[in-house]
Each structure stands twice: as structure tokens, then as C-alpha cells.
């Protein structure tokens, strides 16, 4: 009988702990900063490249912490922190080729960074001035999707289009798509239908699941009995589990997966095991549902610290390098603070902007009424709502 069969509660817990350890977890850099090798996924990488991965992780973490602070100062309405997931996101983002397309959820600030989306553009959404202002094509990074798992079908459809356009077959010049979603999202029907469609149409899409162990207050045992990377086998495509706090392993595995897709061997599922070190969002209070000790354990696996230790111990970077990155981080934080407070407030007409590509008579009429109504106040020398 299948070994994944019925389990006791204890077995379940054990199985879940296993999601951040165990033989099937691909790792190239231990939490202690030791390079280890892997039979299938080895990585030739120069010190300079490792430095730049470190730099990216430090900068996105700093931007994230700044956003968190800005939210508390009332500059942002909400923030969804990536704290702890820097390696998973920078590893995946840096594995992408310029011609690849990413479909994020709402927490992929690190991937956005790799695709050249400025943090201020991401802030726009959380400040409530827009719903995603960057160019999804020039960046190869689609807009955030808030309805859990919806983007998995969009990514699959886009990848079907890459296939229809004959853009696959060449490991270098070919195109691939990568879709980001969380552990909680795996329970949604849309992830399943994405897997079904992608498998049936050989869609060149990498399903990149950041298993950060939590879906708001729901631990992984609310979503599954067994590690999530095992889902794909039942659809006939490979699933790999990588240490999502190891930027080198995530880079290597995601590169491999994207190449597989470009050459026509897609789809591929990656489960990146990581941890949501912060709250779900700035509105959340994790102390209600998880123990501080858990966080402490994961701090020992910090994605940035292990790279720093590695660079230092192996003498791959001098102190000047670290000082330089720290200075850059300070500048970035300052720039974000300034920009955020100076962000323009959209004018009321924005409500009616671009609802349709081809204007709708009825909506135009509503817009006219709206403008006339507002004019009635400004004529009366009062702003709307100014009457009372």
C-alpha cells in the first residue's frame, strides 16, 4: 500500500517538520554558511555573483522593514512583509531570464526588485493610490494578485500562449513563465486546475510555492498531510523541494526548472521551504496563534546571515563590501521614506479612469454627473464632503 497512506497526528506533525529538513530538501549552503554539493543541482558561481545576491537580499529586507515602519506611521494603509523570504524570492527572481514572465501574488516584493520594479511602485498599492502601476510587460512581472490562487491560471494561460507562439524548444532563447503562490493557496481549486491545464498542454510554467509554513493563522497541517512538492507527481510532472532560505539552492533549482520549461519539459513544481518571520500583514497579530520559540528556531536559518558568514569565512568579500551594502540600504530607506510622503493623491476622477478600453455610454454619463456634482461644491468654495 502507498506509504503516503493514513497517518497518525504525530506522523503528520513529523511529516510537516520534515518540510524544512530531510534528504529530499535541496541545499547548497547550510544555515552555518557551509557550501555543500548536490548530485543534480550544483552551481558554478563567482564570489561577485554571491555578493550581488547578498546585496539584493539586504536591500529588499531593508525596503521591507522601511515599509513596515511607514505603515505604522500611517504612510501606508497596509503592508505584507517578506521578512524571512528574501532568499526564496531573490533566488527565484534572479533565475529568470529577461524574456521570462512572472505572475506574483501580493508578497513578492523581492521578485519585483529583481525585475526592476521600484519599491515605490509596490508601495502605491499599499498606500491606496493605485492597484499596481508598473509596466507588466517591460518588467516581465505581472501585477499583484490578491485573490488567492487566481494567478496560477493566468500564468498557465500565458505559458500556453508562449507554447502557441512557438517560443519553446531552446534552453537559452526560449521563454518560460513562473507563478508564485503560497502554502495556503495550494488548497484552492485554481491551483489544481492550473496543474491540470499546464500538464495537459505541456505549458512552460514553473509553479513556485513559497511554503512559509503559515496561511495567516493556519499552519501547514490545515492544508496538507504531506509535503507539498509531492502534489505534482499525481499530474505527471516533477516536484522539487528546495531550502527556500538558501539563495544558492533556490537559484540553482529555479534556473533548472525554467530551462526545463524553455526546452519544452514543463511544467515543474518547486516547493521553497521558508518561513514568514513577520506578521501576515501589518494588521495581523501572530502572538495569538504561534509560539515565539518557533521564530527563534527559524532565526538560526536566516537567509541573509548564512551568506554573510559564508562570504566572510571563505574570504570572498572584504569589510568595505559589507559597509557599502549597508550604506546603500540606508540611502534606499531614505529615498523610500521621502518618496512615500511625497506621493501624489489621485484626483477623484480616477474613479472612472480606464474601466473599459472602449468607453461605455452609461458610465460616461455617470462621470459627467459626478464632475458636475463636485463642481457644485468647488463653485460654492467647498471641497466635496466640505459641506459637513
Amino acid at each position, binding site marked *: 500500500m502507498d506509504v503516503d497512506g493514513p497517518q497518525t497526528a504525530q506522523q503528520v506533525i513529523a511529516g510537516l517538520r520534515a518540510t524544512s529538513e530531510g534528504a529530499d530538501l535541496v541545499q547548497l549552503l547550510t544555515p552555518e554558511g557551509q557550501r555543500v554539493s548536490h548530485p543534480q543541482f550544483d552551481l558554478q558561481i563567482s564570489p561577485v555573483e554571491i555578493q550581488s545576491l547578498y546585496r539584493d537580499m539586504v536591500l529588499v529586507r531593508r525596503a521591507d522593514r522601511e515599509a513596515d515602519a511607514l505603515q505604522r506611521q500611517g504612510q501606508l494603509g497596509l503592508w505584507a512583509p517578506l521578512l524571512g523570504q528574501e532568499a526564496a524570492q531573490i533566488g527565484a527572481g534572479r533565475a529568470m531570464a529577461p524574456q521570462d514572465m512572472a*505572475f506574483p501574488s501580493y508578497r513578492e516584493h523581492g521578485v519585483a526588485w529583481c525585475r526592476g520594479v521600484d519599491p515605490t511602485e509596490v508601495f502605491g498599492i499599499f498606500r491606496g493610490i*493605485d*492597484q*499596481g*502601476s508598473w*509596466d*507588466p*510587460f517591460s518588467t516581465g512581472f*505581472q*501585477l499583484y*494578485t490578491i*485573490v488567492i490562487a*487566481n494567478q*496560477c*491560471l*493566468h*500564468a*498557465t*494561460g*500565458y*505559458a*500556453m*500562449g*508562449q507554447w*502557441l*507562439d512557438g517560443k519553446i524548444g531552446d534552453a537559452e532563447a526560449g521563454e518560460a513563465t513562473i507563478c508564485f503562490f503560497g502554502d495556503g493557496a495550494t488548497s484552492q*481549486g*485554481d491551483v489544481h*486546475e*492550473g496543474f*491540470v*491545464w499546464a500538464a*495537459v498542454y505541456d505549458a512552460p510554467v514553473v509553479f513556485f510555492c513559497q511554503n512559509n509554513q503559515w496561511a495567516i493563522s493556519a499552519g501547514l497541517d490545515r492544508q496538507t498531510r504531506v509535503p507539498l512538492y509531492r502534489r505534482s507527481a499525481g499530474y505527471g510532472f516533477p516536484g522539487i523541494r528546495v531550502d527556500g532560505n538558501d539563495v544558492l539552492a533556490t537559484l540553482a533549482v529555479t534556473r533548472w526548472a525554467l530551462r526545463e520549461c524553455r526546452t519544452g519539459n514543463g511544467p515543474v513544481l518547486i516547493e521553497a521551504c521558508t518561513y514568514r518571520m513577520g506578521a501576515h500583514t501589518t494588521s495581523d497579530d501572530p502572538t495569538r496563534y504561534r509560539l515565539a520559540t518557533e521564530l527563534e528556531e527559524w532565526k538560526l536559518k536566516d537567509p541573509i546571515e548564512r551568506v554573510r558568514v559564508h562570504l566572510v569565512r571563505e574570504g570572498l568579500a572584504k569589510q568595505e563590501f559589507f559597509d557599502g551594502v549597508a550604506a546603500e540600504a540606508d540611502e534606499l530607506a531614505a529615498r523610500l521614506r521621502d518618496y512615500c510622503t511625497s506621493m501624489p493623491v489621485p484626483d477623484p476622477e480616477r474613479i472612472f*479612469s*480606464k*474601466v*473599459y*478600453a*472602449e468607453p*461605455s*455610454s*452609461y*458610465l460616461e454619463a455617470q462621470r459627467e454627473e459626478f464632475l458636475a456634482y463636485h463642481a457644485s461644491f468647488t463653485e460654492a468654495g467647498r471641497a466635496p464632503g466640505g459641506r459637513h
Partner: protein
Amino acid sequence: MAATDAPQTITLAKGLNQGLRAAMEADPKVIVIGEDVGKLGGVFRITDGLQKDFGERRVFDTPLGESGIIGTAVGLAVRGYRPVCEIQFDGFVFPAFDQIVSQLAKLHYRSQGKLRMPVVVRIPHGGGIGAVEHHSESPESYFAHTPGLKVVACANPVDAYWMIQQAIACDDPVIFFEPKRRYWDKAALDPAMAPPPLFTSRVLRPGMTATVVAYGPMVRTVLDAATVAEADDGHQLEVIDLRTLSPLDLAPVFDSVRRTGRLICVSEAPSEASLTAEVAARVSQECFYSLEAPVLRVTGYDTPYPPAKCEEDYLPDLDRVLDAVDRVLAF
């Protein structure tokens, strides 16, 4: 074979088939997807022959899942395709409701025009075919209530031929309703005659006694009623086919009601919070001084669609329309 340009008599089903064919010839980005649309040509044969003539890369069967159909269509649209999705029956669009309402309808607004959604969702709707549950629904109002979508309903073979092409050419998502029990209605089509714009309603029969508006499968019912009303009682009903359900094109309705002073609004759908309510509300407001009687609504009842043996009594028919005419005139 290509869509012929010679005048011809076609069924509504054939009009859709030829319209799809013409749209696919006009634009290589147009693709047709859905359950059983390929070899089978759809359970109503609307896509008959399209896969054979345009190939499996432009016309293909999907796995069985409506959220998957619409969700991947959204992704294909992002990629630059113009997917025409077939939902097999009205009652099976609901698994896709989330993708339609939260994504298809909102992406253009969310991206402020950077992402276009030229997606057509074809839905055979309405009852009267003696079917089992979920095959006779009239879900138009759900979509008309959803900003970001455009919603149209064709009622005759000629409109079917033109409206499907116009819907596919539209850069906005269009929910396209097909009156399944009228698929076999016939009419003469002259492909050389230019059609009216997609988002316009049309006066199909002029009259002075009262105005009757309908859409989709009820249009023929209302036209039949108008004929009888004239023959039996000399009433001249002005019949208007809404054609576009969102946005509504009510100007012709307002004009008409200002002349007739009376309006009857007919639809198979349940009445609560429906399109007929919207028409009644707007006309009651716009034509406040012209109305000589309250706007009457003749609709399906606010019950689930009943077993087929009861549908004749559930659906508005010629007699219920004429009864409403009597009541609106008695005022």
C-alpha cells in the same frame, strides 16, 4: 470553407458559426476554447468544423473546468490572444464566476489600461428545451451588475452573425448570451449589409399603444404577442430588443415610452434585483411625467428553475405578455 458573402437563409446557430469563422479569418489571434468545442463542434454544434478548418492550435478542447477555461483565457489575453470561450450551459458558468468577476472584469481597471481583456464568454441561456436542472438558467443580471464587463444578448440569426464578430472585435471582456431555444430559428442574412453598432438597442416593431422591451429568447415571444395583439385587439405594441444588457441603451426606450406612456419589460430571469428592475427603475425616473401606468414586469418567478414538465407555466409566454398589455392599458 470560408464564410460566404452571398445572401442566404441561416439558422441562429449557423449565424454564430459563420460569424466565428469570419472573426477567425479576420484575426489570427482569435482562438476558440471550451469543453467539446473541437471534434464535436460543441453540444449545440456552434463551433462545428472550426477545428477542422483552423487547426488544433486555434480551436481546442479544454479539461473539464470552467474556472480553468476563463482563468487561462485571461492569461492568453495577457499574451495577446483573443480567446472566445464556450460555457456549455448557463448553469455551468458559476465555477468561473470568481475569475470573471475578480479578474476578467477588473484587470483593465487595475492596470489602468496596460492589460487588455478582449475575451468573449459565450453562454447559451434560457429554458424551454425540456432539459434537466442547470440547463435552463438566465444568469444575465449577475454579469450586468458587474462593472468592467460588457454584456450582450442576441435574439435572431442576423444579429447572431454580426454581434459575435463585433463582440470578438471589442477590446473589453464581453459576456455573450445565446438564446439556446432559438438556435434553430431561421432568417435571411445579407453579409453585405452593414450591422448597427454592438452596444445599441433596436426598435423591431413600431407602435403607439404600449412599449414592450425584451432581449434574447423573449424577443420572439414578444413579437408574436404584438402580432396577436394587433390582430385580436388592434393594439399597436412597440417592440424593442435591448441587445446590449450592459451598458443598457435606453434612449430608444425613453423615446418610445414618452410616446406610448406605457412600458412592459419581459425576461425569463427571476425578477428580484434583475435587469428588468433596472429598466423599470430608469424608465420610471426618466419618463416620470410621461408614464400613464406603472411599468409592468413579466418575468420568470423567483423560484429555482422548475422541472421541465412545469417550464411552460414558468416561462413568460404570449398569453402572459398579452395579459400584461391588458393590465397596463386598464390603468
